[in-house]
């Protein structure tokens, strides 16, 4: 099993390192044909406008949508925006997952933060419960989820920060910036059971 990481721009190396830590094969994806070699795809953090523009320039939009029809995709931060159906502004999106996101929902960099989250779904990969320490960088918010999308984590005030719809996963924070690999294990498990 091999997990691809979209390497157009952003912190893709951090995801590659996390995958290596959990013993997964990975490869960087910059061109459409590279999607053929992988079983699941991570879209990293970065600037969603840059990633969207490069995906159009290198004719990745339709191949990514086709890949997402039956293969697992996980978007972190910018990746979650890119995966969404609606980001409330004009910018290229894959329009796969039934979530509405709001970009820079918490404000500018000075408002970026770290906080502990309660993520019950992670107990499937790491049975002993402990809080998940999450890093939010100029983060978006999942304003609402639609259809069969499930909320996986929320802030204490109820705002949604992680969600799953079948074989699609969205987190607005950055598991790749910490050494806690439970989300990477969770995504690997999603690919296995898909």
């Amino acid at each position: 099993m091999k997990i691809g990481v979209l390497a157009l721009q952003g912190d893709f190396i951090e995801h590659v390192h996390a995958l290596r830590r959990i013993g997964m094969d990975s490869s960087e994806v910059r061109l459409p044909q590279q999607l053929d070699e992988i079983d699941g795809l991570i879209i990293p953090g970065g600037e969603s406008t840059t990633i969207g523009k490069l995906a159009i320039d290198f004719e990745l939009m339709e191949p990514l949508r086709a890949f997402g029809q039956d293969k697992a995709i996980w978007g972190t931060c910018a990746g979650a925006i890119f995966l969404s159906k609606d980001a409330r502004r004009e910018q290229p999106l894959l329009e796969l997952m039934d979530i509405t996101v709001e970009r820079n929902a918490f404000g500018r960099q000075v408002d970026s933060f770290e906080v502990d989250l309660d993520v019950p779904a992670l107990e499937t990969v790491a049975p002993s419960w402990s809080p998940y320490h999450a890093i939010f960088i100029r983060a978006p918010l999942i304003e609402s989820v639609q259809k069969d999308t499930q909320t996986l984590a929320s802030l204490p005030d109820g705002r949604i920060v992680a969600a799953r719809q079948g074989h699609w996963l969205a987190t607005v924070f950055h598991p790749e910036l910490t050494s806690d690999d439970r989300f990477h294990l969770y995504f690997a498990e999603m690919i296995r059971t898909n």
Partner: protein
Amino acid sequence: MEKQVGTFAVKKGLAQMLKGGVIMDVVTAEHARIAEDAGAVAVMALERVPADIRADGGVARMSDPGLIEEIMETVSIPVMAKVRIGHFVEAQILESLGVDYVDESEVLTPADEEHHIYKHGFKIPFVCGCRNLGEALRRIGEGAAMIRTKGEAGTGDVVEAVRHARSVLGAIRRLENMPDEELMAYAKNIGAPFEIVKETKELGRLPVVNFAAGGLATPADAALMMQLGVDGVFVGSGIFKSGDPAQRAAAIVKATTHFNDPAILADVSRNLGEPMVGRQVTDIPEAELIAKRGW
């Protein structure tokens, strides 16, 4: 745990999100829009690009807050702005404006020839220039959450950017093979904090993101720096001093992503129009060199 803001992890984290990208100097809101549309990951808001600062002479200072705010309102990507080396009040002003990153930059006229800003004291992150590993690690010691090799700004000549990137990256490669008992003497010799020297050896890279800057003007220049091993690039005068800024900006963005693919690099380099008029670094009198500001 309660929510925490302004931690080193979130400061450094924003730079990690910029990796593999191009940060562009802009002097108007219109430039900023062109840069964002071309795929810039961030813009550096300033009143004059380095080539003009060099040509005009005089004292170069932090930009007008009004200009910075206008640019912040225009684009959705992060906005950076420059302060003079050691000018912590300019940095306080930028923090109050809410800019996303402060560049304590040698491109502006230094306010302090001995001391850089104590950057750990701020909630907003800082990027600082360096010419070698010692300088990079001193800045990180003061709290810089991102490093850029200096190059020679406003010249369109990539030679200094290459020199500084090779200096930093080469020193790290040698450090990786250095026995631990030599680290203290090495830290003393390069004037860098011991703990950060040790951390750099263990990581095999700088503990923060490292971009290249200073003299990049073409897609090939950006790809050259990426192949040398930096995490991303700053392009200052090279874009808006060229014949067709929008097209050149987009080409440099593509070249930074596909830096290892010569066929794509050839494709994006085609018909770009006039590059900025360069100035060979070796023709510039010693006193006018920008990179030697700061220590």
